């Protein structure tokens, strides 16, 4: 009996020792690897230490190839238009076997400099004059990601739409329908109806498209590896396009009252009217601009936060920094999930609000009349 207990004690001690020892080696191995990768990445740029700002901005930027894993990336088509005509080639031609930018001789000699394709002279310097003539219509990482989003949106909504066509709107939803129906009803009942009023149906397609486009792009941006990883909704060109659509929609659906409130505010002294007109005129443009910056800044800030926390490991040059960094990254990522939804909601809600303000018929006095929906009345009855 005693022998057996001694034996089991020995086994326990030995396995404990082994476990400790093996984790220690693992950790050492990991540290060495991290240092190696850090060294490689800093070697690729300038000699010296790891540059946090550069690394973070590089991850936020658009790219001509889509990073898959390790040193493997998916080359994307480069489409250039210059005075010598259109040319299409793979972005794999723009890097050499060590993943450093290389010169590709197309119509001109092209080289990627800071993520942008430039024309270079034989001596390697950038030819700014010729570079300005080249138009870059490439399918970059963001464009490819956007195409992926479009595919996902089409797959989801065509299947849901066909399900409704088959069973009608009166029967209970099934499968994917049950997920989408509450979200669509949320956009209709919480966003469109309270802000636009009885004319909401006309604007529902736009609001739903914007909502789901932003939502899916935000979610894909949170995925750190291949199918995600592109920073689409944190790209100011993307948010600007959305804001321009909102701008056009608001101003083209604006009625007489809307324009009257901008140029000749009713119920004011004439001097005040003169004073208010330029302010209101500027307001037409600041509304979509704030939409643009809000979405861009929120998503970009989230990405910067996550990347900075990951960079802590490389700043301290020890894998033990990940004990702090990784839980924080998980925590921030969970918050970012909320922000991803919230920003899609806010963009849609503000768009609906601006449309509602532009199409409002009555006068300003009762700016927001008390609004009761079924749930409120139910609560009153109980």
């Amino acid at each position, binding site marked *: 009996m005693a022998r057996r207990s001694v034996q089991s004690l020995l086994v326990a001690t030995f396995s404990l020792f082994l476990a400790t020892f093996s984790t220690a080696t693992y950790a050492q191995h990991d540290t060495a690897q991290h240092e190696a990768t850090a060294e490689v990445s800093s070697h690729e740029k300038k000699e010296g230490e790891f540059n946090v*700002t550069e690394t973070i901005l590089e991850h936020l930027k658009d790219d001509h190839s889509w990073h898959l894993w390790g040193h493997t990336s998916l080359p994307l088509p480069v489409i250039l238009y210059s005075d010598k005509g259109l040319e299409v080639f793979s972005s794999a031609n723009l890097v050499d076997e060590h993943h450093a930018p290389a010169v590709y001789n197309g119509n001109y000699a092209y080289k990627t400099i800071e993520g942008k394709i430039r024309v270079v002279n034989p001596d390697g310097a950038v030819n700014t004059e010729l570079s300005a003539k080249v138009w870059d219509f490439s399918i970059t990482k963001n464009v490819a990601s956007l195409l992926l989003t479009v595919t996902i949106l089409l797959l989801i909504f065509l299947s849901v739409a066909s399900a409704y066509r088959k069973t009608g709107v009166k029967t209970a939803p099934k499968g994917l329908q049950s997920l989408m129906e509450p979200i669509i009803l949320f956009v209709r009942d919480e966003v469109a109806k309270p802000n636009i009023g009885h004319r909401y149906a006309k604007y529902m397609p736009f609001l739903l498209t914007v909502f789901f486009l932003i939502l899916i792009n935000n979610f894909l941006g949170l995925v750190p590896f291949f199918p995600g990883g592109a920073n689409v909704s944190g790209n100011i060109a993307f948010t600007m396009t959305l804001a321009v659509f909102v701008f056009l929609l608001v101003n083209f659906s604006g009625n007489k009252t809307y324009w009257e409130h901008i140029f000749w505010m009713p119920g004011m002294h004439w001097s005040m009217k003169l004073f208010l007109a330029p302010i209101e005129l500027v307001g037409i443009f600041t509304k979509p601009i*704030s939409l643009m910056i809000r979405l861009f*800044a929120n998503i970009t800030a989230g990405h910067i936060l996550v990347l900075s926390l990951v960079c802590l490991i490389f700043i301290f040059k020890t894998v033990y920094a990940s004990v702090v960094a990784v839980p924080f990254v998980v925590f921030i990522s969970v918050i970012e999930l909320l922000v991803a939804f919230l920003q899609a909601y806010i963009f849609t809600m503000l768009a609906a609000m601006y449309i509602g303000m532009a199409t409002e018929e009555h006068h300003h006095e009762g700016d927001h009349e008390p609004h009761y929906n079924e749930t409120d009345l139910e609560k009153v009855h109980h």
Partner: protein
Amino acid sequence: MVVGSVAAIGAGIAAIGAGIGIGQIGKGAVEGISRQPEAANDIRASMIVAAAFVEAVALFAVVVALLGNG
């Protein structure tokens, strides 16, 4: 180097402002809900929207700090 630190101070000041703003919103919402618990859902929705507005202003400042830095 000096530019970088000034930008960081700017971002920090923006964070103070946003912190006060979001704190006020949370205070208002909690007070409102405790006075009228049946309106909790509506209050929560408007609280989140208002907080997002305040947060956006702080993020504008962060973006400006970042651009100024670069």
